[in-house]
């Protein structure tokens, strides 16, 4: 086990390590503490330039105000209505495509695989204008559906890479045995392989949830009204025409960060297991 297990070092080193851990964590997370403190500041503080000093009072009301003064509840709802279908769609499609590319041997297998991989790495900007026009023409501009469709399509690239690598590592004998017994391909997929993919599905779902929930660029390009905007773009509405309400913005940001964090903590084990098996192979 690398580095040397701490139990094998001197007592002094062990104590130093146990102290170093929380100190390092505090330094690492300081920016987060900054946002948390700002979210509890009254606006008068900020108008006076007091961003990092002692707050003149603790304004828990900011958290209520941010719901009152903006459509934060609506934006959070939009984010869920966007992210959950995308996770289902992208992970679902990539189970299919990953299975096809991982199990079957055919001539264009590698070519199609690389097409998915390459497509996922392109800069967003080259897609910006045509995708916006396409969404427009389909009448889906400024809708959650339009944004979701794009994300499902785009994330299929990354998810296919992930799933295909994972499936390749599965024992092929299971499939061979099933084929010998005359089980149809579709049933093999559904009853044999899919259950084995559960850790990868869990891991990928968490990753995709985080990516889509935190996406800012496409949310601003494809959605503009509060009926459709997810929270990343919606937070911008807290920057009014003249005055940016930073205290509300911070409170809103903390609230916006909670769902992906919660999901991450709940699904940690799957997440790390899936990363091990899927990507680092």
């Amino acid at each position: 086990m690398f580095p040397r297990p701490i139990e094998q070092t001197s007592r002094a080193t062990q104590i130093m390590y146990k102290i170093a851990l929380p100190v390092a964590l505090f330094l690492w997370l300081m920016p987060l503490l900054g946002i948390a403190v700002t979210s509890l500041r009254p606006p008068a503080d900020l108008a006076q330039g007091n961003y990092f000093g002692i707050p003149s009072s603790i304004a828990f009301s900011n958290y209520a105000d941010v719901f009152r003064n903006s459509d934060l509840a609506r934006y959070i709802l939009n984010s869920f209505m966007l992210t959950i279908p995308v996770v289902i769609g992208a992970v679902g499609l990539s189970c299919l495509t990953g299975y096809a590319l991982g199990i079957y041997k055919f001539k264009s297998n590698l070519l199609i695989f690389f097409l998915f991989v390459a497509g996922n790495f392109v800069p967003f900007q080259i897609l910006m204008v045509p995708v916006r026009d396409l969404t427009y023409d389909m009448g889906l501009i400024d809708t959650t559906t339009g944004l979701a469709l794009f994300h499902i399509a785009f994330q299929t690239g990354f998810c296919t890479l992930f799933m295909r690598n994972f499936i390749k590592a599965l024992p092929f004998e299971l499939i061979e045995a099933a084929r010998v017994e005359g089980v149809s391909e579709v049933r093999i997929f559904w009853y044999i392989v899919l259950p084995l993919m559960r850790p990868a599905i869990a891991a990928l779902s968490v990753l995709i949830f985080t990516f889509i929930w935190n996406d800012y660029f496409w949310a601003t390009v494809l959605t503009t009204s509060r009926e459709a905007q997810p929270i990343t773009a919606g937070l911008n509405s807290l920057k009014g025409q003249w005055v940016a309400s930073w205290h509300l913005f911070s409170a809103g940001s903390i609230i916006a960060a909670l769902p992906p964090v919660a999901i991450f903590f709940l699904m940690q084990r799957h997440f790390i297991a899936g990363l091990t098996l899927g990507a680092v192979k």
Partner: protein
Amino acid sequence: MSTYWKANQRRLAPWLFLAPGMAMFAIYVIIPIFQSMWISFYDWDGLGDAVWIGTANYVELVDDPEFYTSFKNNLIWLFLYLLAVPAGLLIAIFLNQNVRGIRLYKSLFFFPFVISQVVVGLIFTWFYAPGFGPIYLLTEWIFGQGTAILADDRYVTYGIIAAGLWPQIAYVMILYLTGLNNVAPDQVEAARLDGAKGWRMLWYVILPQLRPATFIAVVVTVIGALRSFDLVSIMTAGGPYGSSRVLSYYMYEQALSEYGYRMGYGAAIAVVLFGIMMVFISGFIWKMWRDETER
């Protein structure tokens, strides 16, 4: 019909499984790439008619000083963002112990990656802010005169990269943590018996086993560096006077921003950015292809 299927399903099944995914991908990714290339040959304000101008946008790009500033900044991003890889490795090694509660620590160190980049950009902007930002006050304390990093065209790009490194290091750290879990313990024991320790152990025994993790870490870091839109947009909007601009932001500025009505020109910039990334993408694909065919 069903007998045809039964006889040929092994040949047809992959295409069945691939069809929906490929269709979506083609419509939303592959075709738009070509459409953007097509638009770059037009002069179009996004509202009225498009006018064919051939390669005029590219000619203008060659003479455009903002383009070169953006390009230079992209290169700086590329090189410095890679610092996330060794940094992530070091933190992963630091956390790779079995003390009580280490799992909580690992999760908390990963936190920055889970937050939106918008929030990361905002908090770092306040950290750098002249007058009250802690980093500004730090430079004042060390150098006697405070430096507002985001206001200084010499340092602004570096300041934004530092903000971007925070979540990126967290991402790389997790990749290496899982990689370290897969390091063969018997090799480590054998090397330890041979007297290897510290840096030698790391370099000769551990790192070679971490090669897949390193590969993925480099790939996502390079892609992230070239994509850096959110942070530039939030922290400086390309300023001061365009000195922190990167190609991804420049394209958006020209095509869709408040003062940007030039879709064709923006598309041309996007095509150039795409070209640059294709160099790296081809490199990665080639490496993956070699790995695949070696098996």
